[in-house]
């Protein structure tokens, strides 16, 4: 249970207002920072906050608050907390809540609600936020009495962090905050009659899995977000080193298994490596660990990995057979299941399969992209690769959504879990900057880099002001191509090159940084990248670098939405011609 906070005076048994009880409960749940925005219906809670050892970060928009709580949770593995008022304050949280829901992020959102006697009267700033958030939360509560507040917040944290994590909304009426009651806090185990997150696999499923692994000639293992969440990295390494099964990662699984490990093939799916998708299509066994066969991973389901038997190790029973029919489902968390399997699988060298993969890898990869000519142009891939080299792969990188997100996944090699934060499931533009602020609060000693596009940055750039007010340092690399790049790419490929509503005029980002008394740098040539990155790392306070990259570059390779996984669009390669584009497929570091 939560250790008592030494800064917290013991007020159990005293009569406290609901507003005080909110903070009593949060502190007891281990919260020391929360992200929010005050307003009428949550004012009593804000008024009481000052008495508690909690740092409140004032955001510039409630969406920023929910993304910050999300970023905090992803970086730390703890529950992130955001707080907002009723009505528009609460609805502004919703994008961030949905983002957390799709990526299974533990989060508790406290919202104010109009006084209980006004509920249903269309009162000023009244929104049915529990109704609104049913589809995008793991669970939610409407609290109308002070005495319900402490047990509800306890339950909310328990639900948010246990099992497959997710966001929980606690909507508290203003009168519940204003009433007083005797504060009670229980430390016993929470038992909810309808909620049991503890799953045990069946012995025969484990046996079936071992048998399949034993007989497989061309196995491949998928490492998903569940590996990161279950802290299964070490167990997975042992498993892979014993069995020599090559590993492919999902976007959210990057870092769960070291990118530079010889058995790691890279990312799978729509913008995955060609050889990974090819290996999947030719595999005779897939061991999917903590992933959910998203459509961006599988492509056309009818032709997906038809020759492969499938073992699905997954915490959430509702994911079993949802998209892909599997032969052996094993419900449980990644680390527990891998640990159970480990002693029963055979040591194996599989020289033929590994040699075959090396062969298909060798044919399509450029060994070291840093030696490729830039022809005086600035490519996003070069920027991200240089960033990877200069930060020695150790930065905590937070990406937004779009082309830069895919380039980051391809060129920034993540060797450690929880060092890549990105909105994978919902694909929320505007996520990166606020999520990075949250991550920085969780990991103040990490070098935090935002990589975002010019479009996504402008969605939440107001949070630069939060950076300035909080005096925190994140480095922002804007991959500025003057377009909504991924949409432009789809228009180029699939909509006859009609660039509708994708060219984008942006403000001068250096001046934007300047206006916040922050540092802004513009980079137009590759030769300037290193200096800019070094300067950003050395500068106190948040730095914004405006990388003016090639405008009409595309992310390759690509599986068009719904196409067969093996059916990839490769980068047009015209060596020697003037418009020769130097970046092929994805690169590998030396």
């Amino acid at each position, binding site marked *: 249970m939560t250790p008592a906070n030494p800064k917290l005076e013991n007020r159990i048994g005293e009569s406290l207002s609901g507003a005080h009880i909110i903070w009593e409960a949060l502190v007891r749940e281990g919260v020391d920072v929360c992200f929010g925005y005050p307003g009428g219906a949550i004012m009593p809670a804000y008024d009481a906050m000052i008495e508690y050892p909690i740092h409140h970060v004032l955001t510039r928009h409630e969406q920023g608050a929910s993304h910050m709580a999300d970023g905090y949770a992803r970086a730390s593995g703890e529950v992130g907390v955001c707080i907002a008022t009723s009505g528009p304050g609460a609805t502004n949280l919703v994008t961030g809540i949905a983002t957390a829901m799709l990526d299974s992020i533990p989060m508790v959102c406290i919202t104010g609600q109009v006084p209980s006697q006004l509920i249903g009267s269309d009162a000023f700033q009244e929104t049915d936020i529990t109704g609104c958030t*049913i589809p995008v939360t793991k669970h939610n509560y409407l609290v109308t009495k002070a005495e319900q507040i402490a047990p509800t917040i306890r339950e909310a944290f328990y639900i948010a962090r246990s099992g497959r994590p997710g966001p929980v909304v606690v909507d508290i009426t203003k009168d519940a905050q204003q009433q007083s009651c005797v504060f009670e806090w229980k430390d016993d185990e929470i038992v*909810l009659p309808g909620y049991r997150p503890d799953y045990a696999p069946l012995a025969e499923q484990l046996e079936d899995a071992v048998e399949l692994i034993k007989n497989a000639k061309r196995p491949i293992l998928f490492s998903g977000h569940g590996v990161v969440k279950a802290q299964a990295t070490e167990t997975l390494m042992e498993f892979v080193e014993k069995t020599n099964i090559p590993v492919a990662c999902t976007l959210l699984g990057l870092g769960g298994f070291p990118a530079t490990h010889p058995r790691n093939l890279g990312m799978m799916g729509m913008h995955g490596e060609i050889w990974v998708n090819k290996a999947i299509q030719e595999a005779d066994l897939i061991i999917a660990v903590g992933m959910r066969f998203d459509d961006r991973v599988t492509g056309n389901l009818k032709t997906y990995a038809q020759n492969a038997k499938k073992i699905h190790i997954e915490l959430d029973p*509702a994911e079993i057979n949802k998209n892909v*029919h599997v032969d052996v489902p094993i*419900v449980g968390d990644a680390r527990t299941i891998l640990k159970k399997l480990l002693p029963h699988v055979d040591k194996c060298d599989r020289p033929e399969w590994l040699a075959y993969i090396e062969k298909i890898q060798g044919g399509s990869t450029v060994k070291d992209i840093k030696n490729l000519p830039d022809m005086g142009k600035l490519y996003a891939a070069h920027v991200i690769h240089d960033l990877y080299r200069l930060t020695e792969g150790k930065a905590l990188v937070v990406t937004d959504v779009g082309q830069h997100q895919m380039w980051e996944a391809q060129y920034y090699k993540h060797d450690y879990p929880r060092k890549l934060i990105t909105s994978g499931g919902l694909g929320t533009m505007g996520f990166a900057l606020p999520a990075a602020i949250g991550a920085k609060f969780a990991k103040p000693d990490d070098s935090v880099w935002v990589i975002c596009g010019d479009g996504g940055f402008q969605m939440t750039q107001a949070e630069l002001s939060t950076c300035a007010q909080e005096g925190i340092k994140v480095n922002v690399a804007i991959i500025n191509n003057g377009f909504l790049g991924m949409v432009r790419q789809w228009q180029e490929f699939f909509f006859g090159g009609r660039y509708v509503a994708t060219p984008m005029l942006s403000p001068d980002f250096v001046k934007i940084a300047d206006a916040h008394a922050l540092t802004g740098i513009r980079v137009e040539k590759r030769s300037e990248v290193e200096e800019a990155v070094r300067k950003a790392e050395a500068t106190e306070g948040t730095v914004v670098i405006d990388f003016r990259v090639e405008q009409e570059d595309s992310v390759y390779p690509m599986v068009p939405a719904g196409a067969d996984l093996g059916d990839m669009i490769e980068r047009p390669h015209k060596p020697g011609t003037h418009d020769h584009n130097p970046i092929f497929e994805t690169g590998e570091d030396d």
Partner: protein
Amino acid sequence: MSQSVKRTFAVFVEDKPGVLNRVASLFRRRSFNIDSLNVGATHEAGVSRMTIVCDADDDKAKRIEANLYKMVNVLWVDDITHKQSINRVLALIKVNCNRDQRDEILKICDVFRARAIDMSPDRITIEITGPQDKVEGLVSVLRPFGILELVQTGTVAMTRGVEKHGLAHPTVPASRNSAV
């Protein structure tokens, strides 16, 4: 893939505000089409019982069950489609009926074990309970007389015999695996 058939789920839920909304919302957002949904109190305080009928094959039925279990307020889900069970709907049917037709309609009611519960000079109201197909049978026989109004409940269902769990009200088992 097995065939899509009409499935009947008995779902025990906590009797709390908004639970019906949560369950209905789940079916809507996962595109599980509900044929009928019935909810009412049980003999146990604080526990309501839903009977949900929907089309699903075996895989989908398991996912419906697993998704229902993900809801914090859902206590127990029983797919009773293939169990020995009693299924009932209740219908009230108001039919045109003049003096000359009364005998015939009352005989029809006898055949279907339905009851006349209200009568006026030119119409009659009939109550029937039974499985859905029996109700549909009666309706089709009455249709030529001219049906003025029809209202029916969704299915309520109960398995025959003694429940294996033997609990006053069942809760989620400690260790379960819907993938079995």
